[in-house]
Every structure is written in C-alpha cells, then in structure tokens.
C-alpha cells in the first residue's frame, strides 16, 4: 500500500463561478437581492440569455482558470423562456459532470440547478450550501493541490 499524503489544508475562501440565465435564475438572483437575503461573496455571477448558451468548455475553462466550483442555473423544466433550452443544458452538463468525475473532480464542485424568478430564497440557500461544501474541500486548480477523487 502506497503512502498517501493526508490533505489537511482546507479552502477558507473558495471561488464559485455562477452562470445565470436572464429569464429565471437571473431574476431569482435579483429577487434574493431585493429581499436582502444574504449569501457568501464567493459566488461570482455571469449572465447569459439562456443556460443552453453555456458551452461545456466554459465550465472546464473556469476550473482551469482557478475556480473551486461551478454552479449552473436555469429555468425549471417546462418554464424555459426559449422553450427547450434548459433540457439541452441538462443533457450537456450531465455528460460533462460524469466526465469531470472521471478525471477526478469532486462532484461537489459542479452543480446544476433550476431556480425560478420567484425562488430568491432557493437561490440564496443553494449558493450558501455550495460555498459551505467547498470550504470542506482543499483548494482546486492552479492555486491548489489539484488531484482529488
């Protein structure tokens, strides 16, 4: 049995790249704001028209650029402003999440979730949850040790 080094250094300040769609999750994020619900500053938003605009490569790039986590959000199924965009996002990102797992990315680092324009509290809850999860892991990517299972 080979000796494995115990990772003790946890990430006190993880980065999460958050993708928002303009119609549902973006408005949900705005509602969290107008309702003054607090969540950690670690969440860094990028808004696109539809979650289906996000190329899986963008997710990979985010990890390569030093993100500790990526959170993809969109409209609930059946609610997509562009009819079926979120189904496509789900198909693409589900494949990607399996691939990321295979190359050793902890599944907690990549989440896909649906948030409606009325779910400000869900938005705050999920972002907080994700940051809390990442704080229990070591830093990832170029700033961290990488290589985890």
């Amino acid at each position: 049995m080979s000796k494995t080094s115990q990772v003790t250094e946890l990430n006190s300040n993880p980065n999460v790249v958050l993708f928002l769609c303009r119609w549902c999750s973006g408005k949900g994020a705005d509602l969290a704001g107008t309702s003054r619900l607090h969540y950690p500053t670690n969440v860094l938003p990028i808004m696109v028209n539809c979650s289906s605009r996000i190329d899986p490569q963008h997710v990979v790039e985010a990890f390569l650029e030093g993100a500790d986590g990526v959170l993809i959000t969109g409209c609930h199924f059946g609610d997509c402003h562009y009819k079926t965009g979120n189904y496509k996002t789900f198909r693409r990102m589900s494949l990607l999440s399996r691939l990321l797992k295979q190359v050793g990315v902890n599944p907690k680092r990549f989440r896909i979730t649906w948030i409606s324009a009325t779910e400000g509290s869900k938005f705050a809850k999920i972002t907080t949850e994700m940051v809390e999860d990442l704080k229990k892991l070591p830093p990832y990517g170029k700033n961290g040790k990488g290589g985890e299972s």
Partner: protein
Amino acid sequence: MSKVGVFVCHCGRNIAHTVDIKKVLETIKDYEDVVHVEDNMYMCSEPGQAVIKEAIKKHDLDRVVVAACSKDMHEDTFRIVTKEAGLNQYLTEMANIREQCSWVHEDKKESTEKAIKIIGSTIERVKRNQALEPYHIPVTRKALVIGGGIAGIQAALDIADAGYQVTLVEKDSTIGGKMAQLAETFPTLDCSQCILTPKMVAVGRHPNIRLLTNSEVENVDGYVGSFKVKIKKKPRYVIEEKCTICDDCVHVCPVIVHDEYNAGLSPRKAIYIAFPQAVPATYIIDPNTCLGIDPLICAKCKEVCDPKAIDFDMHPEILDEEFGAIVVATGFSAYPYEEIGEYGYGNIHNVISGLEFERLLSANGPTQGVIRRPSDGSIPKTVVFIHCAGSRDPAKHLPYCSKICCMYATKHALQYKHLVHDGVALNFYIDVRTAGKDYEEFYKRATEEESVIYVRGKVSEVIQDGEKLLIRGVNTLTSESIELHADMVVLATGLLPSKGTQEISSILKLSCDSKGFVKEAHPKLKPVETAISGVFVAGTASGPKDIPETVAQASGAAAKAQIILSSDFLERDPVIAEIDDLTCGICHTCIHVCPYGAISYDEGQNKVLVNEALCEGCGSCAAACPSGSIELRNSTYESISASIKALLKA
C-alpha cells in the same frame, strides 16, 4: 484597442453602503483599455445620464460599462443614453453590483472585491461587443383570429374596427362557441343569446372581417409580420349565397342524429342549421351521416330545394394566406363527465352535465325552458348540484380549480328555483369561490333570498334507487355522513383545453402548461402574449376564465395585434446567431438544436442560414456547434471566456 468608460452608481446608499466606490474607481482605472472612470449618486437620474453623455463625447469613448443595478431595471435607460451620445447602444453593458452584490453581502471589503470582479468581467465582455442595428422586417397588415367563440368574436371585431383586415376561422358551422349554448349568464342573469347574437351579426356583416366557418388552420409557417397560413375550408354542401333558410330540406331529410347544440338532448337531421341565429345563416350537411354524399343514395333535400342551393360535389378548398399577427381563441372543453365513475354519468339517465342543464334551462332548448328529467320527462322536485366534479382532485382527476364552476352551479340552482318554486336545490361544495365583481352578492342572493341549500362536503357516490337517485356523501363541517334521495344530479365539472387548442398549439409550436392550456409569455405581465412573437392568446385557451375576463383578454390580444399591424416594418433585436461560412462544416447540428426552426440549410447556396426574424437569441446553437462556427452576437464563446477569466483574476 478600445476606449472604455466605467460609470459607477452609488444608488444613494444602496450600493455605497457596502461597496467602497472610491476603492472600485481606483482599481478599475488602471485596467487595460479603461480610459475614464466616474461615479455618481444616481446614474439613472438626469444629471447622472448627463455625466455619461458628456464623458462619451469628451473622452471619445467607444465602450461603456454602467455598474449599477440589474439589467432589468435600467438596461434600456443606459442604452438610450449611449445612443443619444452618438454611440451604438449595443456597446453599453451593465454590471449588476446592487441586486447581486451590495444588497446580498455585509462585509464591505469582500463586497468591494466582488464588485471589482463583476465590473472587470463586464469590461471584458463589452470590449468584445459589436455595434448592432435592429432589424426591420416587413409586416402584412392583416390579422388571423382562430376560434369563433366570444373571445374570437371580440378580438376580430376590435381589430376590424381599428381598420385592419381580419380573417376569422371557426371549425364549426357557426360562430358563437360555448356562450351560444348558455341560457343565462352570472351574476346578472341576462340572456346569453341576447348579448351574444348582436356581436355575431356584427362579425357577419363587418366589411373588414372575412368569416371562414367550417374551416381549420392546417399549417402555419413564417414569423411575426408575415405568417404564411394554410386554411382548409371544408365543404358545406350548401351554397351560402343561394340558401334562403326556408327549412324545406329539413322536413324531407330521413337521417336523424343527436343535436350537438342541445348537448345531445334533442334530435337533428343530417342537413341542419346549428341554431336559428347562427352566423352565417345557412344550412350545412353533415357529411358523416348524410346519405347523399359519396355514394349518392338519397337526394331528397336537393329535390325540394327551390333555390338550388345544395351541391353534393363540393370539395375541400385550401386557402393560402399571409398575416402579420395571429390571435388564438380556441377555447375549452368540459372535463369528460364519464371519467367520474362514482357519479354514474352515462349510466344513470338523470345524472346530467352542467351544459345539458344549461340547455334544459334555455328557452330555445329541447324542452323550451322547462326543466324535465331525461328519463321520464317529469319535473324534478329535488336537484343536487355537485361542485368540483372532477376538479381539485390531484389523485384522480384535475388538480386545479376551474374558477367558474362555483358560479355556474350557483346560477343553475338559482334558475332552477325560479322555474320550480317548490323545488329543493342542494349544492355540495368544497369551498365556494366567488371572486369577481358582484359574484359574492349573487351567491348571497341564492342562499339568503332564494333558499338554495349549500352543504360543505363531497358526494362519494350516486346510485339509481327505483325512480330516484340515492346520493351518499359527507358533511365535512359536522363530520356526519349524508344519504338523501334526489330526482336529478347536475355535475359542475371543470375546464380542459379544447381539442382545437391542443391542435393549434402543436401547429403554432406554442408552449403549453402541464394541463395543455397555452402558456402566456409571462403569467402576470404578458397575459395575452405567447412564447411565439406575434401570436396572442385570448379566453379559455390559456386557462379557465369567465366571460368578462375572456372579453377583456380578447380586447387586450386585439390591441397587442394592432401594435404589430400599425406599422409597415417591425424592429427586431439583433442579438441573434451568426454563422461563419468559412469554417461551417454544414453538419446540421445547429438546425436540430434550434427550438424555433430559425436555422435552415439552403441547397442552392450550399450554406446554413439563420432567419433573423425567427431567431430569439438563446445561443443554444452556439454551444452545440462542433467547429465554433455559429456564434451568438455579443455573447460569443470568447466573450464569455474572457468574462470568466476576469472574474477569477486574483
């Protein structure tokens, strides 16, 4: 090299309270390509806007970032400001440091850092934006209204009165829809026919309305401004212009079938007119039952028709027409009564539907307005009205409330009491919902003045017991079980989208909700728009509604359609997909991904093309293209990549 100006808003204390604006400005001013930074207490105010305009001119800015609130709040404001300063409006982007930063965080240092990152990433994005001009697409200044019920009638009249040409397509032989079958309407109890038929006649003789009854929309192509529509005009077998409605043909016709207008309670012939006030006022032959159409066995009607109005050789006609806007008003159908097995509809004669009761109440109905039991023609002395029959029952039937059933069941009970003074009208309800103008007063009138009895509880079963009906249920207020005998049971069922609504949503590719009703573009703020630009919805096609709401919505849809018809050209957002022909491998991936059918392959040019009038700008194609040859303008792969990098800059 771009020359970016960054304008940071304090929003009073809303942003400045948690974000150190001075620190933001100091950091951002050193960013590559940033030539000017400035802050203001309220960027959206007149003086704030002037600051931006002046800076654009003074520093010859070619890109603008406004770090303030959500795009939904002020994107339009700042785009207009940019345009007024002589810069293309698509070269302005907003960085949301209020809803997504200052309002959700407390720590000033951390919030300031996050705001800087958000602004930095927006700078990278705006640097990659291209100047765009809105598209102009020509408009065919004609409207199509699908469905000739009260919603379609109102919409067609409004558009026609505004001076535009309207084609009204109705699949039945007459317009009027469900409202024409009603006896009286709640809460005023005015006669449905009396208020509806003048509108029907107005449609029939309006110079701007082309009425196509007995017709169906077969196919719709195109987009807002120019929908190309195929309409199938089914043969009537009676020449409208020649028919004098003399009735001679009806007397000789040997075929007897159920009359749909009277909900099957009376007979009609194979040649018939739906009801005397039908528009168009002309007979029609039902090809499924007539013995004269292929093969010709009987021609009795033709023999007696003096004006020679009958033509057995008519064929379906296909009409190709172009319209600028479409109003869908295809209505509802009642929940199938026989599905509610415990109430015995279909097996027990005297368990009838709300619509059947409506016909019994009607002066031009099968009993001339006398309430009679279908089984023996006697006048029922006790009538039980079951509310929520098949509604609010997610386990077995419809999960939702159909909104109008409480009121129409109350109306039925009240009308019954008016006709049978010594009769007992008993309503079983879950909740009585009377949200509407004068509705509560109407309900009070039924209970207090006309002694209609209301029992809170559900009927568990209805069984035949000799001549009478045995009703078993429970009073949920007293928790007592109830067993009583009645002469007749009327089911107040909920509403489903009609077959026509389902068909037309698939033809128009409209989004529908889980029940099959047409989905509005926004449930609150866009109640008559649909996901397809230029297609509007009115009445019960989008969900259960009463008549006033249906009429209001029809006028709303008509007004929206008129906005499109009011000009020769339409402006469309240019943020759409764009193909690089040099690298495109014509793999057709984007064609299959597009939810709007906006991308097509042109064989002649051997090119894949984007239709700018159909593309809505989701960018799904851009993420799917294996060679990166199709891009969403101002949201390109590279632009998003650069934004990600800027966000993660340490």
